[in-house]
């Protein structure tokens, strides 16, 4: 059992850190530490330019096979890259949905023509993607998708009609992957299709959702007979659920250490603030600061165990606690940040509603325990899949 990365991974770490030091500066200085979760609406044009800069230097899609422009980087190298990227203050990756979700799905399940059509623009940092899964009546119950896909035999196109919700970056994206029902008689997981849709067309309407932060990271997306070419369905009609689930499996935790580095940056800010304003002498706050520190360190070692693979088939079980763990920890950190700020936590930077980073974090972390599977859903999954407890009963209409 070893705690450290290999010497070659550490050498790779130095290479990444050096490149970031030499390039994440000048015109890009302003976007350091910006654009992460809760701040996705900020510096969009600059972050698009940064995405292309990464692409030119071969720092996008490093885990992809070389045939599609990747570096075929190992899991460890991808983890190291994400960690150094976050440590350097690399801005939130506006291309991450294409790189980590759509790209790998196409590489595994797409046709040759689809790969040629879509992969190069993701790799170069030019094409931004968004995700069309959730709907007003399909949140935790994702299979309850109502959006319809109807095939027009004559024109050889699909017409997509329905509503998606919680779509990050919809207004900045050229493409959206959409799960829609191809068989109107089917229910649940059956009769779905997985479509790649061009967002720049009359049948697509985007409406931002104003969040409790006053900013809009998420959107509602309305499809009114939006057109999708017959060539732009991944898999066959009816295989959408399998493709959609496979897509969610591709993330593989390589960005989690990068996420933890962002958490570390936030935690460090709180420690510095406590030292400045005297909160560091309050015995109860000291306990909570130490507790947050312990929690973040254990998050790292939980992740390293999962990345190391299992010695007894436990990998899946360990991995299953991750979302519940980090979202709960981060939500508590938000509360801690406000308590360290004390009475000043109530005072904003400016009118009308300019939050500072910790205030924004405090509010936005309430979303962490909801999106990507609520804490309640996570606990169901852990109990059912890891501990072998009975499944939740389903309603009558399923």
């Amino acid at each position: 059992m070893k705690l450290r990365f290999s010497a070659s991974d550490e050498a790779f770490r130095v290479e990444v850190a050096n490149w970031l030091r030499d390039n994440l500066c000048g015109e890009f200085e302003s976007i350091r530490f910006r654009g992460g979760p809760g701040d996705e609406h900020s510096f969009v044009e600059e972050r698009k330019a940064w995405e292309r800069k990464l692409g030119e230097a071969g720092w996008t899609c490093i885990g992809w096979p070389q045939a599609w422009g990747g570096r075929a980087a190992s899991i460890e190298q991808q983890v190291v890259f994400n960690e150094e990227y976050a440590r350097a203050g690399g801005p939130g990756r506006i291309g991450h949905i294409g790189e980590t979700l759509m790209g790998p799905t196409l590489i595994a399940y797409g046709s040759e023509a689809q790969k040629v059509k879509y992969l190069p623009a993701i790799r170069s940092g030019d094409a931004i993607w968004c995700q069309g899964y959730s709907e007003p009546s399909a949140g935790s119950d994702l299979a309850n998708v109502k959006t319809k896909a109807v095939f027009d035999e004559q024109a050889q196109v699909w017409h997509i009609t329905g509503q998606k919700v919680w779509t990050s970056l919809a207004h900045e994206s050229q493409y959206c992957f959409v799960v829609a029902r191809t068989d109107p008689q089917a229910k649940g997981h059956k009769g779905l299709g997985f479509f790649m849709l061009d967002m720049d067309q009359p049948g697509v309407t985007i409406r931002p959702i104003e969040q409790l932060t006053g900013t809009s990271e998420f959107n509602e997306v309305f499809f009114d007979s939006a057109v999708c070419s017959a060539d732009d369905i991944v898999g066959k009609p009816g295989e959408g659920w399998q493709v959609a689930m496979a897509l969610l499996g591709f993330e593989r935790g390589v960005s989690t250490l990068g996420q933890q580095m962002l958490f570390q940056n936030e935690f460090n800010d709180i420690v510095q603030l406590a030292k400045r304003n005297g909160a560091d002498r309050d015995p109860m706050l000291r306990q909570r600061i130490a507790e947050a520190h312990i929690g973040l360190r254990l998050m790292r070692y939980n992740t390293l165990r999962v990345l190391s693979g299992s010695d007894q088939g436990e990998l899946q079980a360990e991995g299953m606690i991750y979302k519940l763990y980090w979202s709960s920890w981060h939500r508590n950190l938000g509360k801690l940040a406000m308590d360290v700020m004390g009475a000043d936590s109530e005072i904003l930077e400016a009118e009308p509603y300019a939050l500072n980073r910790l205030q924004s974090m405090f509010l936005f972390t309430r979303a962490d325990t909801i999106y990507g599977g609520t804490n309640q859903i996570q606990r169901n999954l852990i109990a059912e899949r890891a501990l072998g407890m009975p499944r939740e009963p389903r309603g009558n209409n399923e």
Partner: protein
Amino acid sequence: MEFKFTDEQIMIRDTAEAFVSEVSTSAAVRSAMLMPAGYDADLWRQISADMYWQALPVPEALGGLGLGYVELAATLEQTGRFLLCSPLMATTALAVPAIRLAASDKQQALYLGRILEGQVATLAHSGIKTHGSDINVQANVTDQGVCLNGISRHVLNGQTADFFIVAAKETFASGEQGVSLWFVDSGTEGLTIKSLPTMDQTRRLAELQFNNVVFSPQQRLGGEAKCQAQLLSTILDLAAIAVSAEQVGGAQQSLDISVAYIKERVQFGRTIASYQAIKHKCADMMLKAESARSGLYYAACIADEFLAGACDAETLAEAASITKAYSSEAFFFNAGCGIQLHGGVGITSEYDIQLYFKRAKALESFLGNASEHRERLAKQLLGSEVTL
């Protein structure tokens, strides 16, 4: 990334699991905890002679197995899981690190030799805190000899120890100054060993009363006259990591026996495992057990790095406090939830979950509870002290 057991470590863990699950059944634990020693002496002979576990962290050159803290943690996770009653923790996790870190060559050969033969040793560090500030034994050191007076409490397996490593304060000293560590045999004149009745009957604690206990200055750990406060702190950090291993095992087993029970228990025509309120509690317990395990393995790796000279005492102290703080609360949380999940039978003597609950409380307060370790981490992080 290889933050997982090697094949050899898996073998050590599996061997420990197979052995302890067989010898430390519920009936065996209940029988051992009523014996005067608090454990079955025949079983201890088997552990020390056949399994040779007390030799795990003793260097091969001195006749030990020469293994590391990861292997020790893997073993103690299993002893904790099955509530093994034995002086293994006292001997191999409290006494052995003290000897390894500081004893002279001659002392190593002598005292490790006695331990390898199956003698019981323990640390009398005078109190429950991780630091030496509450030491209540005075050492009057002169050229003619050393004279100890005072009381040392909470001495793990003190009743049956063949020798002790005793923490004392030299008479001239104040604060953390003058902390010194001494080898004292159990039969030494003036030493009275009083058994303390304990809430957790699976672990025995004793009080040592020193009344003009006189011996040679050569029995000073390491032989050299200097303040050993930092050394004691480091010994207790290594020990705390070992205690965490038993806590992780206990946290896991509290979950496992509770899940087994609720899958059988039927109310309103269905197993209570099918109720979401029950499932969610179990999910939280699993999160605690797994995270505590990750923290333990990290701390065990740091302990090995420290013993190899690859990291400093402060890094070890951080790791020890992280794992002890978290696993203390994880075990207590899981054992407490375990009682609730068992319902009425959870508070009976008959079911084992109450034994885990008591063990959880005992280990939580041993070598510094969670609050104390968090305060230690806060001091490292913030560099300041509490002001009230």
